[in-house]
């Protein structure tokens, strides 16, 4: 989230698209009801299904899954055509005025530089025109046809309300009504918040779905303000923490990137991470990269990381592929190239696409270690459970070891919520049986590995042998010790640059924040964005003050928010070029002539002059990007692409199937179905009664939603002779499942390009362990392809067929 849950109460308009907050985030949804009740805010829900969120919405619009970009570019087009633009914001705080190099273009659904064989782009033309000083050439009058604004205007001009209706199936009048409501928030004192979740991410162009809305929010001036923002609703209570701490295969903590194998030296690595400002006098905060990176290396290898060995840069793994995402990992497992797997706290057998392939991949492993507080289907993938897991155990040689772990309520630590708040929690119960904390298991594992390397040597033992492991009990690092390590500390006495005799931070003391980190190795910090969470003032994550000056929703002393306890990112953008709040009634930050003051920690140097330094200091441009240069694999603007399995062809580019830059493994393409064979557009989702695969183990939740079902509309049910509560079979090119049918008015057929499209909903949550009845999940059906940039699998749009059956087989 750019903002926080509690800030949603400040909004004028909530748009829930690509998510279903009332269903999946009922507790956070309270802030939507607050905004409605107190401010008279309106709620718009755009979804293929009339959801629980829609049940309390002012306007609901249906949309065919996987066509969000067409819808959102349609809204952008409406705003531009009708002059509903926050012009002062757009001209100063975005790259609208920037000139793009000659040679950039878009035709037949493809940007310049496409290589069909590699399914990738040569992205040289996706770049600004720079002057001799390396600064961007701009046209403040927006006259140049190659300025970003005019390129954008041309790019979105095809997305007329008629085209949106043709692609999305959203009735034109509903679409226009929504455009009108959204466009109103281009006023300086009207703000819209975007709440989204997996409904946008789980597509082969998920990142561009989100960008399309982020661009719209920039055009309307809704980023960095109270009640605005791009608000990703994270599904798991700590999934924000997962990405923050770099658990992605290509990241290290704090969104630093793992080197690639081409970056053989520290200097090579740093050479592409300079982030020189592209405007004169602009701040480019990532210029501090080296401080964060060196401090990270110091936290990894302590005294063994020195300036002489480039702080042990060589010991960091180097990526030979863009990333080892889950799809690639299971592809390699399927090819027999990964033969051991540690599965810590998730359930791939029911979570990853094309379950048949997942089962085959797990069956080729030599060993599988499952760490989980609960019984998972993955740990029992080799057991035969009839139709629900039809395998032959005799043919599976994988050795499975289960390590029971504690759950979050049995241990202390911090959870990072969607709003970037690190909230410390304490153990509420005693772990059952032999359950051990993940830290204990990892600590024990490390001790034994180290011993093996010490005894037997091995290839490149240094990273293991030199790991800085300064915990009181080496076999079980405590959550507090780890939290202090994330915060960072001085590895040597740090003296005042003006007076070297004066020690400003003595060795071993916690740094106050990331501003104190250094590139000379005198500080260690495992995750720079978490720096400040546990400093010499104590454990700031454990703070529980409900004091909220002027009820802005900031709650500055409740827990601790990264970065620097900042509650709203880019908050300097809440004020105009003179530093005056756009909306005085919702002041966030204000320039008092010499410094930034207000309700939040300024997201800019406190003395940075408002007309000199622009608000988006994490970008070298200093402004928000309507055009992203080379950073996205499928293009600098979002463009409409159909899902890989779609009931419709891409009407704008009939030859392009799916996202042209999405990676498809050999063999998976052949397993994509087409609309002739599989006529219905399916989607998957979660239900409010359950949390993933956990709560099916809980009797109360299991009773509230006991049995697997699929949802279809009344029209399709009638056509197929399916009765509500009766049994059906649903199958895709990759698998077949049986379920109860829920026939509902909440799913209506859409008309797309003159064709009727029926939608089939497949919820997730059931398996063959737990208290609930046995069932299947959508991953038996979904295709093995992910987002072009981050490889999140396409669970939200796929094709199936459906028929009534008399009852389950066995």
């Amino acid at each position: 989230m750019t903002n926080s849950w509690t800030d949603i109460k400040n909004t004028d308009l909530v748009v829930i698209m690509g998510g279903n907050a009332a269903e999946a985030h009922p507790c956070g949804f309270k802030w939507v009801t607050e905004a409605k009740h107190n401010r008279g805010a309106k709620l718009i829900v755009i979804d293929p299904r009339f959801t629980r969120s829609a049940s309390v919405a002012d306007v609901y619009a249906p949309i065919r899954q996987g066509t969000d970009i067409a819808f959102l570019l349609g809204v952008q087009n409406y705003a531009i055509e009708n002059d509903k633009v926050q012009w002062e914001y757009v001209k100063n705080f975005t790259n609208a005025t920037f000139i793009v190099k000659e040679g950039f273009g878009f035709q037949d659904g493809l940007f310049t530089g496409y290589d069909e064989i590699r399914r990738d782009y040569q992205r040289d033309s996706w770049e600004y025109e720079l002057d001799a000083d390396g600064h961007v050439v701009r046209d403040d009058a927006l006259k140049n046809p190659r300025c970003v604004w005019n390129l954008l205007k041309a790019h979105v001009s095809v997305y007329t309300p008629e085209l949106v209706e043709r692609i999305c199936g959203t009735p034109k009048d509903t679409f226009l009504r929504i455009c009108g409501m959204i466009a109103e928030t281009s006023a300086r004192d009207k703000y819209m918040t975007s709440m989204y979740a997996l409904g946008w991410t789980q597509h082969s162009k998920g990142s561009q779905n989100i960008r399309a809305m982020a661009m719209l929010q920039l055009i309307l001036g809704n980023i960095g303000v109270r009640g605005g923002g791009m608000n990703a609703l994270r599904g798991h209570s700590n999934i924000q923490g997962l990405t923050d701490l770099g658990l992605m295969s290509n990241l290290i903590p704090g969104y630093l990137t793992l080197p690639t194998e081409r970056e053989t030296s520290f200097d090579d690595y740093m050479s592409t991470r300079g982030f020189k400002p592209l405007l004169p006098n602009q701040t480019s905060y990532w210029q501090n990269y080296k401080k964060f990176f060196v401090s990270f290396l110091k936290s990894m290898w302590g005294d063994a990381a020195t300036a002489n060995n480039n702080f042990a840069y060589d010991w960091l793994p180097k990526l030979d592929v863009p990333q080892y995402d889950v799809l690639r990992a299971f592809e390699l497992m399927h090819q027999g190239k990964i033969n051991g797997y540690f599965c810590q706290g998730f359930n791939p057998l029911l979570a990853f696409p094309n379950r048949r392939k997942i089962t085959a991949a797990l069956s080729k492993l030599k060993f599988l270690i499952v760490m989980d507080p609960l019984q998972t289907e993955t740990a029992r993938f080799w057991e035969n459970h009839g139709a629900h897991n039809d395998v032959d155990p005799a043919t599976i040689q994988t050795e499975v070891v289960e390590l029971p772990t504690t759950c979050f309520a049995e241990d202390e630590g911090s959870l990072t919520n969607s709003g970037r708040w690190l909230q410390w929690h304490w153990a509420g119960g005693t772990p059952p049986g032999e359950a051990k904390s993940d830290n204990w298991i990892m600590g024990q594992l490390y001790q034994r590995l180290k011993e093996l390397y010490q005894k037997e040597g091995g290839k490149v033992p240094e990273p293991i042998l030199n790991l800085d492991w300064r915990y009181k009990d080496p076999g079980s690092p405590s959550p507090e010790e780890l939290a202090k390590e994330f915060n960072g500390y001085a590895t040597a006495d740090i003296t005042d640059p003006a007076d070297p005799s004066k020690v400003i931070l003595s060795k071993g003391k916690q740094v106050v924040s990331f501003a104190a980190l250094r590139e000379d190795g005198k500080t260690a910090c495992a995750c720079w964005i978490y720096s400040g969470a546990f400093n010499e003032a104590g454990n700031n994550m454990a703070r529980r003050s409900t004091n909220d000056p002027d009820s802005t929703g900031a709650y500055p002393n409740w827990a601790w928010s990264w970065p620097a306890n900042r509650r709203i990112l880019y908050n300097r953008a809440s004020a105009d070029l003179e530093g005056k709040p756009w909306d005085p009634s919702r002041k966030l930050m204000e320039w008092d002539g010499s410094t930034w003051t207000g309700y939040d920690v300024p997201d800019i140097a406190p003395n940075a002059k408002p007309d000199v330094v622009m608000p988006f200091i994490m970008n070298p441009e200093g402004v928000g990007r309507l055009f992203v240069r080379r950073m996205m694999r499928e293009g600098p603007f979002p463009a409409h692409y159909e899902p890989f399995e779609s009931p419709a062809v891409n009407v704008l580019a009939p030859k392009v199937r799916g996202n042209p830059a999405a990676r498809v493994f050999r063999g998976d393409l052949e397993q994509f179905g087409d609309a002739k064979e599989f006529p219905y557009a399916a989607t998957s989702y979660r239900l409010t009664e359950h949390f993933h695969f956990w709560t099916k183990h809980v009797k109360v939740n299991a009773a509230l939603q006991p049995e697997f079902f699929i949802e279809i509309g009344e029209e399709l049910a009638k056509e197929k002779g399916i009765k509500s509560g009766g049994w059906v079979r649903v199958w895709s090119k990759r698998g077949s499942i049986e379920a109860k049918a829920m026939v509902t008015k909440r799913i209506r057929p859409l008309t797309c390009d003159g064709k009727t499209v029926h939608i089939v909903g497949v919820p997730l949550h059931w398996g063959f362990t737990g208290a609930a009845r046995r069932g299947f999940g959508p991953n038996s059906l979904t295709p093995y392809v992910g987002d072009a940039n981050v490889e999140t699998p396409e669970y939200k749009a796929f094709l199936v067929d459906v028929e009534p059956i008399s009852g389950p087989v066995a």
Partner: protein
Amino acid sequence: MFPPLPNPNVTPGPATYGAQDLVRRSASTVEPPARQLTPVAKLIDVSKCIGCKACQAACLEWNDLREEIGYNHGVLDNPLDLTADSLTVMRFTEWVNPDTQNLEWLIRKDGCMHCADPGCLKACPSPGAIVQYSNGIVDFIHENCIGCGYCIKGCPFNIPRISKKDNTVYKCTLCSDRIAVGQGPACQKACPTQAIVFGTKQEMKQWADLRIKDLKSRGFRNAGLYDPPGVGGTHVMYVLHHLDQPHIYAGLPDNPRISPLVELWKGMGKYAGLAIIGLTAAAGVLHHLLQGPNRVTQQDEESADRLAGGGT
């Protein structure tokens, strides 16, 4: 936001109300209570409800009940109906508004309405099995229940359910155990959107006015408070977007009344009771005339003291 109720007091204290606060007791007459508790109410705002079933879960957890793990019946409702374990259920109705042609998904939390004029209590033939406190809560006292099921017949909302395990009847108690120590009901505590709020009946009516104003501003012309006069008003009230047609909310009665049969039975019972009292009095007079006044012995006095706890 409606001001949240405080967190529970962790030091045990005396219950603030109990048997001395009864205004009605089934098949019995009670003395008027010495004090009048402030009438309470739970307000269920159907227009804020997102159907998350947290109230159902909280009810099962607080009352330490576990519902059977059932089946899917082609609807989201689970269990399909109230049971002796599920004292509240969410009822989902897909309704197409004939005026706008818009689909409205009406989600109503069903359970005991705690009528001011409780049909269950009036129908109950077992002394003290159903009681009503002066704050309006209608409670079932299971040790006095004979399992005859008359209360089910007497309820205009079809709420109580008989348990197959102990053959007594169960319904929502409005968490009288929590209210007695200053807490709100468990469902209210768990509700994430404040679709359920709890307070004095007066406060709830005022809060409902605010909500109705908001709904009217959003085009729900007939939004209003459901507090049906046919049962003397209720201590569980609904804010409805369409107060003109309560029945669209999964059959919420448009104009609930106690069944005339119950009134008749109560009426007859009342006269029969009076006749018995009259006869007893007559017998007493006769006894006095024939045997003379009762004499209280010293021993009688001592026994009485012991029974009263040796008190003064």
